[in-house]
């Protein structure tokens, strides 16, 4: 027993040293370290790779360290409401407004960029949605044709968007046999939609990054007005009623610094370039101030 523990301990130490070695190569900045900023965001933001592309520039410039916790819109907002995040980057207007109404926000809803949802589907477009004007019309056609449709079904920002489109189309698909509510993340949903040869509402970045494995699907409908996906920043209010009397530490200063930088021209230039070299097109667009 002792030997086993000893061997395990040695292995862990070895790995820890290896880990330390890895970290040292990342350092070498001249800016003094300033502490950490806890950013809670949704998986889809993190999965697109945008943050790991943007944040190193911010960290190098200001000396702050940004810890990105990503876990689905519901949990991300839950982290912020628990006092375990300094700011939020999310894309679900309804939930953001509820967050503000409950007194948790220190800033207004700072909508600063958007991208487009797209409807992907089988390349032969069995429901004939390519020529429709809006997403709501496309959904109506899918319902008429009873073509298979794959839904996230996980109450994420993307799922809320999809539900909103069904509402504006005046259709309740939840009990239809062609409607598959999968309860999975974006990547998983796309893989399943590919197997089901189903239509699916997805963000463009995730679809493009998985294009090679999605052999049965292509983007059928893109860039209609009702398919905009707006991202907003929200600072967490240290004075929220729920936090009263609790030992809550919100890094308001750091959160503001990150917000200011993300709204700056420098960040804007970086966001505009993102995806251009890898996918040949711009993935995120800025909201003009």
């Amino acid at each position: 027993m002792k030997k086993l523990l000893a061997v395990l301990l040695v292995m862990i130490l070895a790995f820890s040293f290896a880990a330390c070695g890895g970290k040292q190569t990342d350092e070498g900045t001249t800016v003094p370290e300033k502490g950490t900023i806890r950013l809670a965001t949704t998986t889809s933001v993190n999965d697109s790779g945008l943050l790991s592309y943007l944040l190193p520039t911010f960290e190098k410039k200001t000396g702050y360290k940004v810890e990105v916790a990503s876990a689905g819109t519901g949990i991300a907002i839950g982290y912020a409401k628990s006092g375990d995040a300094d700011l939020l980057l999310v894309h679900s207007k309804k939930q953001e407004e509820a967050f503000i109404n409950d007194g948790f926000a220190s800033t207004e809803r700072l909508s600063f960029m958007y991208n487009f949802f797209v409807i992907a589907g089988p390349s032969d477009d069995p429901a004939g949605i390519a020529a429709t004007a809006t997403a709501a019309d496309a959904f109506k056609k899918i319902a008429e044709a009873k073509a298979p449709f794959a839904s996230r079904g996980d109450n994420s920002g993307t799922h809320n968007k999809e539900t909103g489109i069904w509402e504006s189309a005046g259709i309740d698909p939840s009990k239809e046999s062609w409607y598959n509510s999968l309860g999975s993340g974006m990547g998983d949903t796309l893989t399943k939609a590919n197997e089901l040869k189903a239509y699916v509402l997805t963000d463009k970045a995730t679809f493009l990054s998985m294009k090679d494995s999605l052999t049965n699907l292509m983007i059928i409908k893109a860039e209609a007005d009702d398919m905009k996906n707006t991202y907003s920043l929200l600072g967490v209010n240290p004075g929220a009623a729920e936090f009263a009397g609790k030992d809550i530490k919100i890094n308001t200063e750091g959160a503001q610094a990150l917000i200011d930088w993300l709204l700056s021209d420098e960040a804007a230039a970086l966001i505009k370039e993102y995806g251009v070299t890898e996918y040949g097109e711009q993935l995120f667009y800025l909201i003009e101030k």
Partner: protein
Amino acid sequence: MEYFKKAFDLILHDNAELFQIIGTTMTMSFFSTAVSSLLGIVLGICLGRTGIKGKGIIMRILNTLMSLPPVVAGLVVFMLFRSVGPFGSFHLMFSVKIMIIAQILLITPVICCLTASATEEKSKLISETARGLGLPWHKEMTLLFKECAGQLVSIVLMGFGRSIAEVGAVSMVGGNIQFKTRVMTTAIMLETNRGDFEKALALGIILLCISLLVNSVAYGIKEKMK
């Protein structure tokens, strides 16, 4: 075969972050297994030896806790330790420590239950023998440990297996933060969500290799003890 090649490529090249992830995974699994084993084996042996009235109920509760879904364990720990929660002042959210706490909650019942059923029979026999020979308490325990060593190693390894393979609890309380709380399983989940299935599978292969290594070492020791 291609995926094995990809796994090797990852180890050889893109490795600074990978080693950090492996380091965090090992630290977490080691401490959660160690603490759970200590608690679980002591409790399990006590349970195996005792003949108290409520034993049946305790065993049933522990057996139920064996099927505690990881995400529920994560949720309970999150509710307790979030900043607005009762233990919020410890400020443990999104740290390796809290991932270990969540895993202890998950693994201890498993180890306790299995230890209780593994030692119950032998415990009685040894206890009788010891009484006959007039052996002191600690000698009796040493005897019991020697008798059950092989099974206990397997039980601890099972606990380690559950710890290293678990994703629900650690992503809930750890937040899957890069360079800090990202472990093998949450990294695999992330790469799957990103659609990089090859990298995800390569990470899975590396995880299994580490597990194989740990198991081999433990079995080597187990053989020697015989």
